[in-house]
């Protein structure tokens, strides 16, 4: 994963691996019910100072409720929330050192850009000169000096997004909350803004918490991702871990594209710290050799998951005996420009997706429809998930 080219300091940033490290934000057994609906269920989560953390999940998974509880707009039904060592569970939003950038941006329509940014500072009764200085600083930060006197409706979507960002940063909050901040921007602008956000977080050395349903955005921005579903956190890990070692079928399926095969464990022997496991899949009509982190019981029903780009296609059966090989036929090819997705029909009619980078021009494509091919992947390419 070529993530964040920010040098060795950034790569070493992993406070969650240090058990001594005090969390900056902590949700402790937090439950939130709306009537009979449980939005957040017995959830615990630790976020560390200067971390860029993403809450990722589909709509209704509880990610927004979790963020709103941190902002103070919702009060947990049960449990506690801590920020920087202090309990903030019942502190109202206007007394929390936390600021939020809203999905709708929520810019005050009757105030100009300058006054929008100054709004939070004015609430603290700062001297006028301090407010002015800070507003100018913020305008410079988001490169909107020329638009200080404009009203929000006279700005483009991207500019409004930057005003919202400047406004929420103006008070130098302990945590910046971002609620789907880029959802309203088009793809190109979104990518640019993502880079800006990352640089900003690096520069300001602040803790950022982002809520998003866009897995690419979460992978791109965050140090760690919490994948949520129906009020629970399924996995908290770095983007790389989430992608390569998903803990459940839901997580594997939510992030990126993946093939699942229902299997039975037919063999298992320990091997330098992990286990070498043999699976049998009815769907593939094949044996699969897997190197796994921990052993499995023989006879257990499990799911084997493998990402499309981890498999190779060839005409000839690879000779290396350590590779898993599956025989199939090209069923369909989806050409996406940079890559092509090959749909390979294996025995039993099961379709396996695999990605091939288009390193040669299209006319020279060697493997075509209805070709008999071999799929191959090594023992570390996929993961075993419990069912």
């Amino acid at each position, binding site marked *: 994963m070529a993530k964040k080219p920010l040098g060795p300091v950034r790569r070493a940033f992993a406070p969650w691996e240090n058990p001594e490290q005090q969390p900056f934000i902590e949700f402790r057994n937090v439950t939130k019910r709306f009537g009979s609906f449980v939005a957040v269920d017995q959830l615990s989560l630790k976020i560390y100072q200067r971390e860029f953390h993403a809450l990722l999940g589909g709509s209704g998974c509880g990610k927004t409720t979790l963020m709103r509880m941190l902002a103070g707009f919702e009060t947990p039904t049960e449990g506690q929330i801590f920020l920087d060592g202090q309990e903030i569970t019942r502190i109202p*939003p*206007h007394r929390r050192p936390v600021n*939020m950038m809203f999905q709708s941006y929520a810019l005050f329509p009757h105030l100009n850009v300058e006054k929008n940014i100054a709004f939070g500072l004015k609430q603290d009764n700062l001297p006028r000169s301090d407010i002015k200085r800070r507003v100018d600083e913020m305008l410079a930060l988001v490169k909107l000096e020329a638009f200080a006197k404009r009203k929000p409706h006279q700005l483009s979507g991207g500019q409004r997004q930057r005003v919202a960002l400047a406004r929420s940063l103006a008070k130098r909050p302990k945590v910046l909350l971002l609620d789907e901040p880029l959802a309203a921007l088009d793809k190109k602008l979104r990518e640019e803004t993502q880079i800006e956000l990352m640089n900003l977080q690096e520069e300001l050395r602040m803790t950022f918490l982002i809520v998003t349903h866009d897995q690419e955005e979460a992978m791109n921005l965050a140090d760690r991702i919490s994948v949520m579903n129906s009020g629970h956190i399924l996995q908290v890990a770095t983007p790389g871990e989430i992608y390569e070692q998903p803990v459940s079928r839901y997580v594997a399926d939510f992030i990126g594209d993946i093939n699942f095969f229902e299997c039975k464990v037919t063999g298992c022997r320990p091997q330098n710290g992990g286990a070498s496991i043999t699976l049998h899949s009815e769907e593939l009509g094949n044996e699969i050799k897997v190197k796994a982190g921990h052993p499995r019981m023989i006879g257990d029903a499990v799911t084997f998951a493998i990402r499309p780009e981890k498999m190779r296609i060839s005409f000839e059966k690879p000779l290396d005996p350590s590779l898993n090989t599956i025989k199939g036929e090209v069923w369909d090819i989806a050409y996406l420009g940079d890559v092509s997705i090959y749909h390979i029909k294996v025995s039993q009619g099961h379709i396996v997706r695999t990605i091939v980078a288009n390193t040669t021009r299209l006319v020279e494509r060697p493997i075509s429809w209805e070709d008999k091919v071999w799929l191959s992947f090594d023992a570390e390419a996929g993961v075993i998930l419990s069912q």
Partner: protein
Amino acid sequence: MKALKKDWFSITSLVLGFSFLYLPIVILVVFSFNSSKLVTVWGGFSTKWYSALLHNEQLLSAVYITLRIGLVSASIATVLGTMAALVLAGRGRFMGRTLFSGMIYAPLVMPEIILGLSMLLLFVAVDQARGFWTITIAHTSFTMCYVAVVVQSRLAMFDQSLEEAARDLGCPPLKAFFVITLPQILPGVLAGWMLAFTLSLDDLVIASFTSGPGATTLPMAIYSQVRRGVTPEINAICTIMITAVTLGVITISLLNKQAHTKKQSSATIRAGS
């Protein structure tokens, strides 16, 4: 317009419909400038009935009372109606909100005579001497639901996250309402006030039920005078009332329209940029 010109049926129904609506009013206005004392005979143009009004103590005091009732009841109704609208437009969830939303509309369709009678019964039951304040209370209670409806429709367009953003930035809830929400819904609140004032101004039924000695509103005064015979003076005062109400209605629609065009113009600017 071109299509309309050829369509005789449309023109006829338009003319008939509008004459049905406005002919009586036009006649009333025209005859307020009649110099003859007889209401039905034209005796030349004159504004003497308007100057005569200035000397009619009874009518003038009725005008004064009506305006006071209107101002006070419209103001209270605006505060209460706005509060009701805020709650009903989705601040906080609570049991029976749907029921309350439905109930706020009830006075809109309830016959005035029933409202008036029930108010009278209430004031008798609590042994309240009837006069200026009883009419004001009655008017407040029946106009506040109109305010609530107008403000509620305005709030439907209001992005609630604006107020949340204000609170998030350190603004206490009450202040957030006054600095952020109120400026946004102000056109609706003002329109609600105008509506409440206008309704109070021309109400006869409820006022008759709830008034007492010394508190005769203008519509009541007119009504009792008419029973003794219509004078051109009545025409004059009615013309003034029509003018006032018309101006009120125009103001309300301008307030609403201004808010609307503001939205539209901002949309065009956005599209242009």
